């Protein structure tokens, strides 16, 4: 697997090719895409709007944020429900404990900060006070992955899905665009139990329907295919949609499955698809270690050990750059999904 990665992080200077991103983008737009978009927006705005809606539907929904209200798009909720919103200051450990306490008192707390500070920094607090104690806390994590861009590796957490999915009782959700994030946010308010909701900063195509119903734990087959299955999560679902069209131009019919819920994983949908296609690719904005690909591999190896190729970050930290540059450099875009699909096909 390691040999597939052209850009080991310690050699990055050698590989500093200037990538003509506008050409790549135009190429995508001329493709015969099964899903298209007219507008782009950040998934965090989907969270913010969903949060407001959840707050309107249920007076028990409350919010907490550690000095990142603007970044998390929690401001509209705060404005409408000031008495139900708690600025905690830059004190994430306390925020998680507060949320656990509010949950046991019957509230539905949404605790928001950057994904790095919402997981790694407070892992033990989440483990003991939320997951082990089975508290109805929604951990809302923005700026996940490489695509937060210029802030660089200190903020680009690529291990959060792994950390969160390892915790018993934890539901882990990583929606793909504004609409899906909004729907997911509304759905988790109605679900009883701890949830990790991951979203991001970049402006991203809105290609899934407005007012969709979000079913936790239910994979969504977006495109039917027969040759290879692409399992994608988060921002990379869009890249998978683009990759599908690129593959189709070459006569390869890929099935695209949107795995918005990483835990509990819809193993039935995964196995059913791979039974048909015989090989698969996983695509995520996360480390290969502990990510979605790992979960899919576990499923396949037990029930149907078909070839699986991974698209993800291979044991490295990120760096500063624009989202598109970073996805390109770290091998996470549609072109890389296409390559991975071909590798998987060749191993069938």
């Amino acid at each position, binding site marked *: 697997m390691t040999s597939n990665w052209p850009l080991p992080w310690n050699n990055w200077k050698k590989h500093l090719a200037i990538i003509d991103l506008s050409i790549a983008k135009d190429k995508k737009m001329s493709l015969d895409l099964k899903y298209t978009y007219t507008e782009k927006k950040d998934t965090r705005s989907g969270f913010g709007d969903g949060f407001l809606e959840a707050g309107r539907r249920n007076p028990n929904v*409350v919010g907490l944020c550690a000095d990142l209200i603007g970044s998390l798009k929690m401001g509209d909720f705060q404005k409408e429900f000031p*008495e*139900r919103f*708690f600025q*905690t*200051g830059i*004190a994430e*450990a*306390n*925020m*998680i*404990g*507060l*949320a*656990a*306490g*509010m*949950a*046991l*008192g*019957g*509230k539905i*707390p949404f605790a928001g900060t950057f994904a790095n500070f919402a997981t790694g920094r407070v892992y*033990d*607090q989440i*483990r*003991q*006070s939320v997951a*082990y*104690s*089975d*508290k109805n806390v929604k951990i809302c994590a923005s700026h996940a992955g490489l695509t937060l861009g210029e802030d660089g590796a200190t903020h680009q957490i690529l291990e959060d899905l792994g950390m969160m999915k390892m915790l018993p009782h934890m539901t882990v959700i990583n929606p793909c665009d504004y609409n899906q994030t909004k729907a997911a946010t509304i759905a988790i308010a109605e679900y009883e139990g701890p949830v990790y909701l991951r979203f991001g900063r970049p402006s991203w195509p809105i290609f899934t329907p407005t007012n969709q119903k979000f079913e936790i734990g239910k994979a969504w087959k977006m495109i039917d295919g027969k040759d290879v299955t692409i399992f994608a999560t988060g921002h990379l679902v869009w890249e998978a949609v683009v990759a599908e069209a690129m593959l189709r131009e070459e006569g390869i019919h890929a099935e695209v499955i949107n795995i918005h819920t990483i835990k509990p994983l819809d193993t039935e949908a995964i196995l059913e698809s791979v039974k048909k296609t015989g090989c698969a690719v996983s695509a995520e904005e996360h480390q290969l270690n502990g990510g979605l690909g790992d979960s899919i591999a576990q499923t396949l190896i037990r029930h149907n050990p078909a070839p699986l190729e991974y698209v993800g970050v291979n044991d490295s930290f990120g760096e500063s750059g624009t989202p598109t540059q970073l996805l390109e450099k770290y091998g996470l875009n549609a072109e890389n999904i296409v390559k991975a699909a071909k590798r998987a096909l060749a191993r069938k």
Partner: protein
Amino acid sequence: MKKQSLPELQKICSQLRRDVLRMVHAVQSGHPGAPLGCAEFFVALYFDQLHHNPNFQMNGKGEDLFFLSNGHLSAGWYSVLARSGYFPVAELKTFRKLNSRLQGHPATHEHLPGIRIASGSLGQGLSVAIGTAQAKKLDQDKSLVYVLMGDGELQEGQVWEAAMYAAHYGMDNVIATVDYNGQQIDGPTEKIMDLMNLKAKWEAFGWEVIETKEGNDLAAVIAGLEKAKSLTGKGKPILNLLYTEMGYGVDFMVGTHKWHGSPPNDEQLALALEQLEETLGDY
């Protein structure tokens, strides 16, 4: 619950100490020192101060709640919970054993009545207590939230994050008690990491601080908690510095960190139990 007289409450303290020692002895593990020192606090709280409902409800609406942040005092907490009717006293014999509801450190997972959050990893309980107190304020629920922390535990940064929050939001329905026994695992707190002037620290963080200098004198502990209660509802969170002695009640255990986490052997147990009257019947 009908209030009991001081001598009656004293008897419960003695029985609690016996329970703790027999529990940790039976499994040759656990923490006897701090719960021995907090026996008066536990009994004063559960048998005199708390307005609570032994028909356990997780959300605790309309009743006073207690959180044990220093979860290693579990043996003491389990004893007072059982003795005040949360679960059968006989269940104390399952402490720390396989398939027990009485986990080494308190947990909600096994649904033991009286426990609302897991603790054991130190430094988290104050945040949880304040969160619950915040939920009570949202619900216009006038009851109080109590929490106990160790003094060594105060070395955790999260405690001070929580302290800041509570003052900022005027969490005047919170009464936090510090088991000020001056000991922690590796030695006296003064040597390990000096807490210096704790009263001044908490005051500087915006808390109303009271000192209960005789933390192993039941009447003084009750008076301290009464005072604390009288200070609630005035815009500030309340901190009760409870001066206790680790290992109190057993002459060879008192005042040293050596009994923080070591169980007595058979002989030591016998010697210790001779000093503590069996008042309510051993489990």
